[in-house]
């Protein structure tokens, strides 16, 4: 029982690293994804084609393969970053592609009347986007966005294959070292659940709220 408690506290310490990585990935992926979505929505045909190809290549390949590609290919291209940053930036770029699709869908679901209204008042395109379209689109996009935030937390467990210390690697090492894999992995699952379940419930409550509004 004593050893279980010590292992649990060790896992909690490792989970602080996971939370750091998750916040980093969520922040950068949401920012990049929003920019990509806006550029995709209001860009010319060639820009839309480039972004389409980019998103197609990201969605067609497993995230693990993306991690290996960024880990082995970034140094070949001359970017000598530490392994942590390579993994986190790689994951952020991948998740930003998915998030950009979510936000683009939300922007495109705003009725045409809003666009006509702001043009009628005399707002320029960027002012109208900033004050009229984007706040409404963001409210529609929030439930799927939150589910992608939960996916970002789950994706931080993938960086353990690149031997970066976070909760999954700590759990695996402790499980194989202490010869008690089931309790240790159960504790790891519990900690991940404690991190992501509040987010998921918030997303569900938002979704229920928006379904009943119309």
């Amino acid at each position, binding site marked *: 029982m004593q050893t279980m408690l010590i292992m649990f506290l060790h896992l909690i310490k490792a989970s602080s690293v996971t939370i750091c990585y998750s916040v980093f990935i969520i922040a950068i992926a949401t920012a990049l994804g929003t920019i990509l979505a806006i550029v995709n929505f209001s860009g010319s045909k060639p820009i839309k084609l480039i972004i389409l190809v980019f998103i197609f290549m990201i969605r067609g390949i497993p995230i693990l393969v993306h991690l290996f590609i960024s880990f*082995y290919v970034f140094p070949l291209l001359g970017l000598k970053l530490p392994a942590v940053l390579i993994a986190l930036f790689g994951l952020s770029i991948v998740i930003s592609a998915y998030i950009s699709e979510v936000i683009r869908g939300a922007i495109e679901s705003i009725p045409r009347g809003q666009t006509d209204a702001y043009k009628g008042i005399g707002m320029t395109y960027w002012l109208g986007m900033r004050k009229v379209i984007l706040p409404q689109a963001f409210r529609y996009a929030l439930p799927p966005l939150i589910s992608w935030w939960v996916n970002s937390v789950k994706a931080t467990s*993938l960086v353990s294959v690149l031997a970066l210390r976070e909760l999954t690697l700590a759990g695996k090492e402790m499980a194989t070292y202490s010869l008690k894999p089931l309790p240790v992995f*159960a504790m790891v699952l519990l900690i991940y659940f404690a991190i992501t379940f509040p987010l998921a419930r918030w997303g569900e409550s938002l979704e229920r709220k928006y379904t009943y509004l119309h």
Partner: protein
Amino acid sequence: MYYFDIQYIIRNLPLLLKGLVLTVEVSLATIVLSSLLALSLVFLRISKNKLLSGTMYYYIQAARNTPTLIKIYMAYFGLPTIGIMFDPVIAGLTALVFDHTAYIIEIYRGGIESISKGQIEAAEGVGFRHWQVIRLVILPQAFRHALPSLANHFILCVKDSSLLSIIAVMELTMVGNLMMEKSGNSYEVFAITALIYLVIISTMCLLFRFWEKEIKFNF
């Protein structure tokens, strides 16, 4: 990097094909097993009994909000300690099916709950019994509503099969890593691995889009 070594890929093509075959087998097994399992469990999820639907709700939340990697480690390292000895492929498959069944239960539930009550009342009025209503009226329509989400999820199943590489299952990602460690030219190896995955997933996308168009509701 400027000289792309095609001869290297051609020499290692048999190994890549073996990895591809295992990837396709694992993905198909996950898809088929979790679809069938979810079909039986969805009736527990939509039942009026709060205990049954609550249990399924918490199972689904636990499976959806935790990383699949931990479940694969648990199945591979943990199950032998309670006596269940699997080889790595079956252990990984267990973990993946446990994970994906939860998602597919939600997809089926969305499809079933999107059917208007009028259909059920009409069927009962005609004289169908409970299971006949489900089999002949609800399920065919629910399947048509759910097919786009199901197609999207099956593509996710193919991508999740690459996670089995962490327990040394010789599927495509693991073969790529082995080739990379043996020879060191990462550029060609990951280009061909990415290309094969893109081809598999684009083919699936096209096939599903064709199927959706065939069975689309035309009101």
